[in-house]
């Protein structure tokens, strides 16, 4: 690996910017994510920033069971996040649709729509758990970028083009 790529890779590990996407969450997980930037948890010391635009972000944090209204929106927002990128599912809802399983208005779980890298279980998860999940996502992000540096999309992957990994709603 050349020095330039090593430098960029090292900086990538120290500067993960998050975009928070609510896919029909009850606001419980959202509050816990915001708690991460308060003085008690202070994720800014890890270089983590909550960004306002998905185009600025490296890691997409999704909460909620993916309602019918948000299913298209999460794919649009995912396509706007620049490569290399990673997805963290926050809470039990995106992992399993939780208590909403079987509802006709729910199109979850999230893995039907996006390639999820890290699941953070809990209803809601503690901020410590969210921070650990993001830290793991940073590792995955850095390894992914090193494995495939700035190459065109590989077939069937979905990470480079933002297309759906798992076939979408069935």
């Amino acid at each position, binding site marked *: 690996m050349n020095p330039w790529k090593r430098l960029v890779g090292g900086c990538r590990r120290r500067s993960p910017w998050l975009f928070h996407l609510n896919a029909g969450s009850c606001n419980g997980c959202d509050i816990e994510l915001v708690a991460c930037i308060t003085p008690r948890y*202070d994720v800014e010391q890890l270089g983590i920033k909550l960004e306002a635009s998905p185009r600025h972000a*490296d890691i997409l944090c999704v909460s909620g069971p993916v309602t019918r209204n948000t299913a298209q929106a999460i794919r649009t927002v995912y396509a*706007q996040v*620049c490569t290399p990128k990673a997805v963290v599912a926050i809470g039990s809802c995106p992992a399993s649709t939780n208590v909403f399983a079987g509802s006709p208005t729910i199109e979850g779980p999230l893995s039907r729509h996006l390639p999820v890298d890290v699941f953070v279980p809990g209803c809601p998860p503690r901020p410590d758990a969210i921070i650990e999940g993001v830290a793991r996502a940073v590792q995955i992000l850095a390894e992914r970028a090193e494995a495939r540096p700035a190459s065109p999309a590989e077939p069937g992957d979905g990470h480079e083009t933002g297309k759906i990994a798992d076939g979408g709603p069935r």
Partner: protein
Amino acid sequence: MNSAHLLRLLVFPGLLYAIPAAWVFLWIERKAVARMQRRIGPPFLQPFFDFMKLLGKKTPPRPGVDGALMRAWPVLAAASAAGAVGLLPVLPRAGGFAGDLVLLLTLLELPSLFLIAAGFSSRSPFGQIGSAREAALGLATSAVFVTAVLGIATAQHTFQLEALVQAPTSLLRWLGIAAILLCVPAKLHVTPFSVANAEQELYAGALTEYAGPELALWELAHGLEWVALTGLVAALAAPPVASVWAAAGWWVGISLVVVLLLSVLAAATARVTVEQAVRFYWRAAAVVAVLAVSASWLLGAGS
């Protein structure tokens, strides 16, 4: 352009000093706000990490938007902010030319204009609202800012920065510096005047559609604006000294003090509305600026 000008533009206080200083100033602001909120805050190299990481990202396509234009704005903004830093009269006998104050004022104004243009050419509704707010704030502050600088210049009968800085400090100049200091938070989008890039409220304002290396250049341009504006205040407030090292030391020191003052302001206040910001500048800050320019004109006519 002689070698002295080139040295100023490229080495000190120009690019070689200004780019690391931009990152350090951005770090000091973030760290100071974090410490005042009882947080630990980002590591020293954080703005550098952010810049390098953004350089390594790819920009997704922006259908329906003129890509060349979008790419040009951050480059122009960074270039004009860097040019403004290079013009600052920091070292004694560094040279200059008649009317370089006018060029400096223009270069300090341009990044804001490029930001407005960028927001409108991104065709994002959030970008357009951000640009409209930036334009309203620009109208409010620019009049005060230019009046304050003119007040200082009228008192010394010169538009040349070198002569302006070397002149003995007077009460009038401190009045002008106070008016400039009142404008600096709005020009740097520091809370309470962060109405244009109001994050979470307008998404990312004019920069909503920007990503990757272009966003990195915007961050750099923003840092260079910090160096330029705090540097302007420092150059006017620093005592005239003969030694090159002492002059540079005073300038950097006062710049850092201004950065810390702005951080305290950012940590202590909440965002105001556009109307409140415009009202503050046209009612309160304008009084100081008009006082400075009229007093210097009256005293100049009397002497």
